[in-house]
């Protein structure tokens, strides 16, 4: 009945998602990020301008004039387009946020629905560790606010890979092979290429340890040992600075440095960030610095941002059994359709009230129904009987 990868969201899940989206909006607003809404359809050309990755799996549509359009495949490129075309004359930096769907055909390797909800921010026109740290801190803030008991934010950098590969003094073919192996997260392949190349044993060991250890002080220590080039030293210093500033924001022990982190999208140019929570194997958020994207729209300013995969975050919260406060269930009033004054009074009093047919004893709490000449209120496992006047106190909003 519906295309593959599309889905309906039923009331219970929609309520939970709504609560989550409101929380995300509130945290984004707390840092001064203004929400934008961009159109679902963009010119194919616009998305292609940014990056080849952006049109992969995209749904193509033609308008009446035969122009090729595409459903947006993420929100970063539309935000960049919006900023470059409408905010050029404004003082920098710009701060935008969004909560919206993006679309890509489902496939086994993409592991997401054809329509997937994203929430994220873009900080445009600011560079340096302080700007990176604000965005990373906001991500930590949001995840902490969901009440998730176990999550971590990994920090890596594109610059490290580039500089590391350069420091190994490989042939151009080997360099490409090493970068491909890192992109495929294939460490045995990576090690065998480095092993066959003319790389000294100490560097090989340090490299392997820096990747094996993933995060923490020891990984930084090992990475420094093999930091042959100034580029690599700078990349490490930058990451450590970002982590320290995020800790100053109060998010201690949440951020770890991971030298193996590889950017999923090729438009990232600096720091990359990924967040993980138990209950989902894939990242609940991804982002990074993309200093060349705005230049595709002839406005060369730096930018950094992240996007949360709302469905995955929801799954992680469900797995951890953390739920955000939601509206209480409505009071089911038997014969409510024939009692407009009563229903209006209940709703004025702040109660959500739902009319169910007369004579039917509502199957679930809370419920209000007639039994002979009396009204019966079932709520919170308690039963009260009497006239509506007598039940008034019981009916008050808790």
């Amino acid at each position, binding site marked *: 009945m519906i295309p593959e990868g599309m889905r309906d969201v039923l009331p219970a899940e929609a309520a939970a998602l709504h609560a989550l989206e409101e929380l995300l909006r509130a945290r984004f607003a707390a840092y001064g990020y203004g929400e934008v809404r961009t159109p679902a359809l963009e010119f194919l050309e616009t998305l292609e301008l940014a990056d080849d990755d952006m049109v992969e799996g995209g749904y193509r549509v033609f308008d009446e004039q035969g122009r090729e359009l595409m459903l947006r495949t993420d929100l970063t490129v539309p935000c960049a387009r919006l900023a470059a075309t409408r905010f050029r004359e404004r003082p920098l930096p710009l701060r935008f946020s969004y909560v919206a769907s993006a679309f890509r055909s489902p496939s086994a*390797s993409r592991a997401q629905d054809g329509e997937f909800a994203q929430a994220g921010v873009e900080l445009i026109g600011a560079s340096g560790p302080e700007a990176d740290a604000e965005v990373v801190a906001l991500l930590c803030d949001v995840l902490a606010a969901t009440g998730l008991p176990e999550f971590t934010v990994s920090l890596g950098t594109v610059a490290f890979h580039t500089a590391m590969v350069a420091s190994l003094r490989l042939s151009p073919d080997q360099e490409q092979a090493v970068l491909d192996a890192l992109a495929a997260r*294939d460490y*045995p392949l990576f090690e065998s290429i480095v092993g066959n190349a003319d790389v000294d044993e100490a560097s090989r060991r340090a490299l392997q340890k820096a990747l094996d250890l*993933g995060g923490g002080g020891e990984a930084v220590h090992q990475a420094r040992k093999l930091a042959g080039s100034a580029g690599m030293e700078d990349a490490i210093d930058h990451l450590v600075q970002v982590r320290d500033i995020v800790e100053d924001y109060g998010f201690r022990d949440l951020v*770890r440095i*991971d030298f193996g982190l590889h950017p999923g999208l090729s438009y990232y140019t600096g720091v990359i960030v990924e967040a993980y929570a138990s209950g989902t194997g894939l990242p609940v958020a991804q982002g990074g610095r993309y200093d060349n994207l705005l230049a595709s729209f002839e406005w060369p300013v730096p930018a950094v941002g992240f996007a949360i995969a709302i469905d995955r975050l929801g799954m992680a919260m469900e797995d951890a059994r953390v739920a955000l406060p939601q509206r209480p269930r409505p009071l089911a009033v038997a014969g409510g359709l024939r009692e407009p004054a009563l229903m209006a009074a209940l709703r004025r009093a702040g109660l959500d009230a739902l009319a169910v047919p007369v004579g039917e004893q509502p199957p679930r709490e809370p419920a209000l129904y007639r039994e002979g000449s009396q009204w019966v209120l079932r709520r919170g496992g308690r039963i009260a009987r009497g006239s509506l006047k007598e039940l008034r106190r019981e009916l008050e909003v808790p």
Partner: protein
Amino acid sequence: MSLRIALAAGTPLAETLDLFAAAGVPVAPLRQVGASPLQELPDGTVVLATRAADVPLFVERGGADIGVVGKEILVEVERDVYELLDLRVGRARLVFAQPEDASGAWDEEHGPSRVRVATRFPETTRRYFEASGRQVNVLALEGPVEAAPRLRLADGVVDLVRSGETLRRAGLTEREQIAEYSLRLIAGRAAHALRAAEIGALIGRLRELTERSESGGEA
């Protein structure tokens, strides 16, 4: 929290268990005949022994933190996981084989214009023949493939061989070796970050064992 591990069942399981036992994981309960495929070990580690092709999915989606599976599966099904260590055991070769009496592998003059190949590795097979510019009709089977040529379903097979005995008994001759594979330790992206300490410790022990056996083997 203890690790959750998905292991490829079948032939390579015994070698995997030997290696994990040597690395200090108490896997003994999994060796019992008729052991349940899902077990909680004495140290709290949860182990699932399942169909090899399903291991990467369990790991990618976080059903298991890490997994052990043959490289042939990882190249066949594209999954977003970390491939952390070559365990150097469970070695197998992927080969193209044909009935002994078949006329050569590719005979443009007298052979069929398109060769039918039965395999459990359709993607790898397609890529291999495409790369050498040969047209094939790939028949993806879930089960054993060696009977396909005799029953005229296919002109040849691409299959994983260890000793080669199965193919020989089916009257098939190896014509080309496509690749050589071994077992790999894989980790989910979330587990790689959230369980970095536990996974790092296990990798350290396994790496020592595999490197020792490798240098021992060469001596």
